[in-house]
């Protein structure tokens, strides 16, 4: 009986006219205290058994193996326990949910660990003057709190900014070509973009180094670095934008064309605005792809401990590049400073993400409701769903 509850509608107070007592509201999906107890008991029991096997009986060692084995045993025990209490169907469902939850955890934990460790190692050396001073007069003997990173912040922002200015229009236009125009060139272009996304970053850097820094005799510059980053950013922006454009319902294109719009206006005034939030995501992903790139910058911007705000002339610094250059010196102060640079880089990425989302979420006709209708609007099924009541 309990197994078939899932499919039933929830009964609420619907028959108030009749003198019947209020029906009890059943919530088949609710996670009760007993469910929690079963979950915890399975976790503890499986943990104990695996610990016994692992530490006392079998000649194994190491935390990773223990965790994997524990998780497997836990799933089995949890499944058996739930089956005993609720039946096979619910047991399968719970085990699947627990497995997915566990895997998600296994992904989130390392991510948080990376962020947390960087913050722990780097944030302690952060002082306000990091954002106003450079490393020009700071030596390896100076404590990590001395000096600053202005030259690297300026460099990173300029290089990534220039790379975005080139690759976003190009990438979005290419996506529009792939998705809205098409024709015989569609396939070769798509293959080319895919191949481009496989270019190792050092190859992109060396390419720019040979062609521009050496042959064209530009010398090292932030702009050369930006061009190397553009090579890496372009395929990401293109492919992500293309996927997003493909989600725009064909009915909107038809509606636009049926109003007498030429195809370019349809793409520009209907398709792109509809996909705007997705395009912004594509831009963010592209920037995230390149903001931490170090290898191509080694051979293009070279690095510079003093401030050079002109990206077109002379070596320039960048946060990941400086972090790397400090690390390889191996001196305690410099390594700590490298962690500080890495931390500031992560914070910068975070700020860019939030800023892009906030700017992108500007709503049709003001007020903060856009997010509710915006994202589902890419879904063809959403068009007929009334969203907000009349005001």
């Amino acid at each position, binding site marked *: 009986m309990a197994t078939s509850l899932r499919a039933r509608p929830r009964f609420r107070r619907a028959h108030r006219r009749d003198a019947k007592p209020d029906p009890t509201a059943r919530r088949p999906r609710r996670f009760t205290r007993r469910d929690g107890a079963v979950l915890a008991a399975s976790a503890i029991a499986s943990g104990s058994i695996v610990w016994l096997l692992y530490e006392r009986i079998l000649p194994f060692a190491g935390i990773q193996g223990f965790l994997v084995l524990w998780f497997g045993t836990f799933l089995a025990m949890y499944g058996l326990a739930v089956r005993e209490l609720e039946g096979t169907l619910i047991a399968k469902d719970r085990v699947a949910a627990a497995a997915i939850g566990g895997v998600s955890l296994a992904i989130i934990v390392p991510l948080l660990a990376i962020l947390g460790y960087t913050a722990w190692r780097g944030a302690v050396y952060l002082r306000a003057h990091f954002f106003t001073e450079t490393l020009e007069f700071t030596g390896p003997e100076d404590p990590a709190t001395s000096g600053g990173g202005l030259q690297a912040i300026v460099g990173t922002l300029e290089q990534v900014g220039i790379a975005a200015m080139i690759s976003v229009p190009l990438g979005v236009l290419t996506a529009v070509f792939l998705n809205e125009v098409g024709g015989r060139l569609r396939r070769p272009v798509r293959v080319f973009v895919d191949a481009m996304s496989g270019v190792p970053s050092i190859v992109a850097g060396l390419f720019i180094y040979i062609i521009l820094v050496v042959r064209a005799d530009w010398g090292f510059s932030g702009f050369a670095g930006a061009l190397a980053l553009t090579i890496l950013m372009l395929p990401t922006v293109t492919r992500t934008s293309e996927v997003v454009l493909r989600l725009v319902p064909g009915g909107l294109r038809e509606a636009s064309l049926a109003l*007498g*719009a030429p195809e370019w206006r349809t793409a520009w005034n209907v398709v792109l605005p509809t996909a705007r939030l997705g395009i912004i995501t594509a831009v963010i992903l592209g920037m995230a792809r390149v903001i931490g790139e170090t290898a191509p910058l080694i051979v293009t911007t070279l690095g510079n401990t003093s401030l050079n705000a002109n990206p077109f002339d002379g070596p320039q610094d960048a946060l990941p590049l400086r972090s790397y250059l400090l690390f390889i010196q191996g001196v305690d102060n410099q390594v700590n400073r490298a962690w500080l640079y890495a931390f500031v880089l992560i914070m910068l990425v975070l700020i860019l993400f939030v800023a892009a989302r906030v700017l992108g979420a500007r709503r049709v006709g003001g007020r903060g409701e856009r997010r509710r209708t*915006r994202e589902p609007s890419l879904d063809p099924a959403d068009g007929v769903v009334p969203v907000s009541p009349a*005001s």
Partner: protein
Amino acid sequence: MSPVQTEARSDPDVVTLPEPATLFAEGVHAWFGDHHVLADVTLEMPARAITALIGPSGCGKSTFLRILNRMHELVPGAALAGEIRLDGVDLYGQQMRATETRRRIGMVFQKPNPFPAMTIRENVLSGLKLSGMKLRNAGDVVERTLTQAGLWTEVKNRLDRPGGALSGGQQQRLCIARSLAVSPQVLLMDEPCSALDPTSTRRIEETMQEIAHFVTIVIVTHNMQQAQRVSQQCAFFNVEEGSPGAIVEIGPTEKIFDDPDDPRTADYVHGRFG
């Protein structure tokens, strides 16, 4: 028409009510790839009248409708033969651009499709913007077309809200207003009510009756009562196994429903099959 109005029409900045026009299809065939889907359709769709195209699914009536405003050619592999004339001008002739054709012959689709990135006001004006027309008296256009579409009183206080926030029936009326804003001479409707509830359907039908005096309407519908209620003329399309779809019978709606010449028409409109 008075000379004043003729004067006004010659000024591109002034949006005036369109002149209804007669649409005439002669010997129309259609293919998708090698598949012949529509054969030899000749049909006059007179001005100031509503023509209903009825028939079973797959008989080619939607294809025919899309040929009327050159949407058919957007489908890869689509081909056609025959002539479509709007007040005597061949729509597929050398001097007609597809965009101009579509601006003069608007279309309302089965599923309401307001532009989600635009407000209600922007949706109404989108056709003018998209077809590159100059915009003057935008407020008047919005009020006029929304009133014609029977939506003005419901949305006049929230014109700056997104079009996607309306109910399905309201969205469809918004789409009608959007089509009317570019002052088309003909409005094609491809099962405009099939996704709507009976109340919304009724509102759309009222709207059709109100706008029929200044825009020629051609509607595809699977709903016999709807065809009977709204149209003055009916064309029954049918398709037989292995042959392309074709018109079986054309006539005044009353005749098609009460006393059709062809037994297949009688069977279809009365729901008898096989």
